[in-house]
């Protein structure tokens, strides 16, 4: 069974459109994340959500908005898509273990977004 899944795997769209990428984890984790990997392979965190609360926002444009309908899902909505949004977007999740200073993040397979 896939632990962290993303849909779609590939998304091709026109500039100016609004699109969403879905992420689901069946691990019972408490925190979920979105990362962007650009064409140079640089991987940067965009958001993380815990118990429906946004706790990190790495100054991404407000055209990007994470939405978490429940603990197992963190979807990424992108409005008014721009050419520079073309990238691979990764979802990840991590558990919360009381007393641990580190909890491993599990990554999804990525969604390749191409904006034409």
């Amino acid at each position: 069974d896939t632990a962290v899944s993303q849909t779609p795997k590939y998304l091709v769209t026109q500039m100016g459109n609004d699109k969403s990428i879905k992420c689901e984890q069946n691990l019972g984790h408490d925190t979920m994340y979105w990362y962007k990997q650009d064409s140079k392979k640089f991987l940067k965190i965009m958001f993380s959500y815990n118990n429906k609360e946004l706790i990190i926002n790495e100054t991404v444009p407000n055209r990007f908005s994470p939405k978490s309908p429940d603990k197992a899902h963190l979807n990424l909505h992108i409005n008014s898509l721009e050419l520079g949004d073309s990238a691979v977007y990764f979802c990840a999740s991590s558990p919360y273990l009381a007393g641990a200073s580190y909890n491993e993040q599990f990554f999804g397979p990525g969604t390749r977004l191409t904006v034409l």
Partner: protein
Amino acid sequence: AQTVTQSQPEMSVQEAETVTLSCTYDTSENNYYLFWYKQPPSRQMILVIRQEAYKQQNATENRFSVNFQKAAKSFSLKISDSQLGDTAMYFCAFMKPSVDNYGQNFVFGPGTRLSVLP
């Protein structure tokens, strides 16, 4: 802010040989974690190995080991007996533990593309 540098954009190694990937980082923190992630052509991010900064002993996972030099802020990955399946992008990453474990924030290096040649 923390930064992670990988000075080797591409490397290649013959099958069964040993290769070392370099990583340096910059931080003022004393307690942190370092990771190597592998990203094969499938794009999946796979954790290869993890090192806690407070541990002096270098981490080892089967054919993968690290050389952690805290004073030099260096964290290299050694792959022994390289296999064709090791062909991938390798990312070095830094994480500062958060007080309440929420919102742990990775800082990734730019990656090294490793090709294992038959």
